């Protein structure tokens, strides 16, 4: 992860590139090692998220009607917009890697900036969604003040079986937790628990990614990257794509249950 002059072989060579780490033989070895390293790290990330995906699958396969019901409280429109925003950020980051490889410093800066803005936009929309849910009280099971509200059209007939007291207030049906069939309500709480854990953990990854991008921007401005030295950009992009990849699955799994 370094700028370089020229490279002709191993350690005792006075022509050794000054940013080739002391224990590597060549820039190629250094790049390959970094690449394998980041991929192995991504693998651990996949397994890190796996437990939540397993939780999701396990609860959904056993309580499909709960998931169907609870998913309606998620805003598909916002989810879809966020998907596109994140895809766009992935695209600009991939472009940034190309810029780095070609040594286009100003374009690299610009693409990284767009990526950062998209990431910020994603978190902004996420914030709106979260605050909406906190406001409405569609939260996990441990929260007692939960009152589920829904547009009349969104309340499926079978839902009526699970609760006795739908009230029409402010143009919406709402049902206080205590009026939902308790077994059903518990599992609705579990759905939101899984929802908040999955999106929350993903959000944390986005924020880590944003810090990473800021760091890359600073290094770009310093002129660290060039055609033979773009490892950090490349590896940062791989991480970012993985974050995107996880969202690609989260979106249909959470928002699009019919």
């Amino acid at each position: 992860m370094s700028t370089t002059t020229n490279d002709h072989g191993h350690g005792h060579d006075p022509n050794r590139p000054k940013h080739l780490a002391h224990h590597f033989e060549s820039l190629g070895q250094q790049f390959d090692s970094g690449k394998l390293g980041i991929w192995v790290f991504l693998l651990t990330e996949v397994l890190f998220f796996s437990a939540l995906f397993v939780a999701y699958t396990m609860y959904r396969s056993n309580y499909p009607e709960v998931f169907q019901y609870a998913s309606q409280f998620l805003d598909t429109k916002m989810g879809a917009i966020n998907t596109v925003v994140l895809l766009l950020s992935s695209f600009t980051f991939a472009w940034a890697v190309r810029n780095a490889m070609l040594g286009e410093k100003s374009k690299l800066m610009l693409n990284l900036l767009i990526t950062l803005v998209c990431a910020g936009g994603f978190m902004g929309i996420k914030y709106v969604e979260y605050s909406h849910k906190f406001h409405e009280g569609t939260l996990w099971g441990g929260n007692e003040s939960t009152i589920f509200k829904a547009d009349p059209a969104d309340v499926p007939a079978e839902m009526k079986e699970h609760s006795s007291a739908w009230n029409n207030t402010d143009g919406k049906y709402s049902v206080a937790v205590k009026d939902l069939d308790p077994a059903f309500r518990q599992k609705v709480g579990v759905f939101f628990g899984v929802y908040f854990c999955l999106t929350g953990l993903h959000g944390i990854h986005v924020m880590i990614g944003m810090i990473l991008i800021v760091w890359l921007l600073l290094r770009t401005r310093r002129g660290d990257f060039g055609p033979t030295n773009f490892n950090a950009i490349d590896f940062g992009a791989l991480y970012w794509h993985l974050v995107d990849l996880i969202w690609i699955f989260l979106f249909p799994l959470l928002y699009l249950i019919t």
Partner: protein
Amino acid sequence: MAPSTNSLDRTNYLNATKGFRSWFMTIDHKRLGLMYLWSVIGCFILGGFFAMKIRWTLTPGVTDFMTQTVEQMNAYNNAFTVHGAVMIFLVIIPSIPAALGNFVLPIMLGVKDVAFPKLNRLSYHLWLIGALLFVATLFIGNLDTGWTFYPPYSTGHTDVSVITAVLGAFVLGFSSIFTGLNFIVTIHKMRPPGMTWFKMPLFLWAIYATAIIQILATPVVGISLLLLLVEKTMQIGIFTPALGGDPVFFQHLFWFYSHPAVYVMILPGMGVMSELFATFSRKPIFGYKSIAMASIAIAILSFIVWGHHMFVSGQSETMSVIFSALTFSVAVPSAIKVFNWIATLYKGSIAFTTPMLYGLSIIWLFGIGGLTGMFHSTLGTSVHLHDTYFVVAHFHFVMVGSALFGFIGGIFYWWPKMYGRMAEGALSKWGCLLSFVGFNMTFLPLFPAGSRGMPRRYAGYTEAAGFDSYNMAATVGAVVLAVGLCMALYSLIRSLKHGEKAPANPWGGVTLEWQCTSPPPEHNFDIDPPTVDDPYDMTLVEWRGQEEGFLPKNPRSDDPCIADIQKA
């Protein structure tokens, strides 16, 4: 000054730079290895203290069952939890891979350092933070969940000390992941020319297999513990039944990591065994390929056997049967290794050095530990033995009798390389012998105690239950074991000043770490790159007497040190 392959009087990695910062902020894998080593030993003493506390509480006559107070029970529950958590997360898991692995792996590969030295340093610093969190736990509350942190007890029925402990385990997990990642990349990308996969020393195979488990399994426990944490602090109900969660699900997540973690503990020990048996029999290891492949097989199979921890948890019948069958599959490669080691002794020239004594002890202890494992994979017997002292004895035979003894054997084996001095002598041999005897005295009686129904994690037993004699024997054994371990530690520390100076190759090993001087120079090798040959062709070196140790039969002309010796 006579030419020598001992470099204590020259510049070496120990004396190249001085001061706290030069150690704490080092990226030298050897210094990191040593820091891990001493930190692990420190934690071992802490865990050992709690082990003695457990034994003391259970000693018949010390606490009367009828008058035992809740405070005493809580103290006991805290002791077994801290003992387990410290020994597993802070001692055995980092022992061989992080301490010995860090020191030895790059030298064995003939390279200057691991692939990502800074990440390596980060691993160590994370480990320290994790260790500090665990130590903080001791002062914050009475951690009493057992090292397994099962909900709903951990989430709803005990104090906040769970939070620091879980955070500690989480951070330690990342330390372990980064170490594994580093080793995988180093082995893949930095093997010297000529060292094909099947010319790699078996210790590296073992570390590689371990690293696979570390990177695949540890993230899962990381997220499980994180979920436990949000559940405890924010009542997100994924595991708590009162909130609609499923406590058995936590056990699945937990054991998906924690069973493979058992092999994170034992595989490196097996790697050390292979090195010890080859070197001290002065013979190529028997069945090199099957040992190497067995390591990988164990690593992969270890992922699909976790359900045998859950035979009585309410896991479904079908899954229990599947897990039982899969569990046996992991026993076969373990058995193969034992047979191969024994076959290595055949027609060898066996040197009864301290490390080899540990090696021979492990053959027996791992034999017992492995064979008693079959009682647990067999469904019929497992149900009865589950959560009794039979299990406790079984896993101590594997964790202590094999993994920990492997660690100590490895320390004695590589000690001359680490410090340039021999720790060999009557003291270290008696230490090994006493540890072996004491260990058996402690844990052998616990097998029948367990099969007769002695449940684990009990702060006391009524006299009528009839477990007093077993407990008495175990306590006496524990004292002998403690004395043996102290002798081993003392012999190591004493050797730092009084030990004889070690040559580059005191034992006759032909893996690359024996080619560099003892202790190695800062960048591991004076010559570059080192010669790569069959790692177990013992005829490459010959015995040149106590002072010079073993030297290559055909030394390279550009090796200044050896050339000098041969002239002299």
